[in-house]
């Protein structure tokens, strides 16, 4: 019965060592989180603001977009996650809105940012996230190709389908699922924006 106390003592010592290491490194983590949290929040906001500004013409607004963030009703515009829209104000007047929308592509959800002007025309489109096949359906991403340039300036009057389906827009042969999804969602966004008069009112009453 001499082995038991030493084994116990060893286990106790090991537990204390492990505890001390955990406490030391957790405090180190807490400290670095505390030191960087403020800056990370700042940087992320700036990145979001810059991303939103990409779908709007330069100089189209003179107020920060993030304070103009408003929630979109759940399930609207294909969004399965809570989504928002942003209002771009210049001289106190709403010039444009940026909508977060989600299309269902070939590889899964395609997240879209759709900029719509006061006149009901598309100002810009960005694709923050998609899972379309590289080299096939991913040309809907403006980082990959100029495909969605043809959507700029279009409004509700356009036929929001690919040419193959009798619409106004070109698509690459053999890869029409992704553009179909994007076009349908952009059309939904346009319809929704024009059906919401309060979107364009400064005081939102």
């Amino acid at each position, binding site marked *: 019965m001499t082995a038991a106390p030493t084994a116990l003592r060893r286990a106790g010592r090991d537990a204390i*060592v492990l505890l001390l290491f955990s406490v030391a490194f957790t405090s180190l*983590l807490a400290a*670095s989180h505390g030191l*960087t949290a403020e800056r990370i929040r700042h940087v*992320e906001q700036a990145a979001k603001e810059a991303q939103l500004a990409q779908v709007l013409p330069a100089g189209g607004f003179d107020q920060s977009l993030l304070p103009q963030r408003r929630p979109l009703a759940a399930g609207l515009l294909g969004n399965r996650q809570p989504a928002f829209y942003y209002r771009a104000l210049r001289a106190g007047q709403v010039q444009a809105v940026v909508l977060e929308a989600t299309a269902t592509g070939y590889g899964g959800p395609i997240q879209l940012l759709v900029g719509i002007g006061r006149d009901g025309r598309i100002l810009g489109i960005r694709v923050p996230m998609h899972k379309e096949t590289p080299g096939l359906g991913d040309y809907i991403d403006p980082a990959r190709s100029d495909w969605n340039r043809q959507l700029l300036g279009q409004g509700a009057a356009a036929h929001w389908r690919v040419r193959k389906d009798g619409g106004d827009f070109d698509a690459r042969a053999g890869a029409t699922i992704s553009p179909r999804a994007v076009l349908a969602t952009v059309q939904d966004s346009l319809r929704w924006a024009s059906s919401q008069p309060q979107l364009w009112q400064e005081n939102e009453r």
Partner: protein
Amino acid sequence: MRWPIGKSELRELLFNGVWRQNGGLVQVLGMCPVLVMSNSLVNGVSLGFATAGVMLISGSAIAALRHWVPNELRTPIFILIVAALVTMVDLLFKAYLHGLYSVLGIFIPLITTNCIVLARAEAYASRNGVLAAACDGLFMGLGLALVLAVLGGLRELLGQGTLLAGADLVFGPAARGWVLHALPAGWDYQFLPMLLPPGAFFGLALLIAAKSALDRRAARRKAAP
């Protein structure tokens, strides 16, 4: 004060890390980030340097603390140290290098699970001095970065005919013009197998074969008078 590590030892560590025991080509460790992030030169080099940085820090930290770590608790404590350091690097990247962070994304936290970090902690840092372990970590990391750079460059060149695409995410918008086109940009050249995961395996296999061929030729030369 005596420099605690000799010149020949240092040369040995460098040669081991970059060539003889290369993490990517010989030990074949840490393949998950290597295969995924090697689709372009910029991605590969970024991840390579991030890993080298983590290995430098984790090697020195583990060597410095090695006398306080009971033998049977080595693995959990090393994992704890590596994970904490990687999370700190992750936070720093997020705060100060946000462009690069958006490229590497999930793969910075995944450096924790990169076996090569823990393998070097176990095999080297737990038995050697701080400076030697720091050098070992750095050189092993640089060896991996070199593989990632060559593999990334190869896949980018064969896959989309460019080099340095995406440099603007690391160096700012000024770097947008750095992209080198092997073929006219208007051709829209793409060879998908190289960009998709199979290309990573083909490329890595080619590199491993090339390294073996070079080693064998060197051995033959040595043998022949």
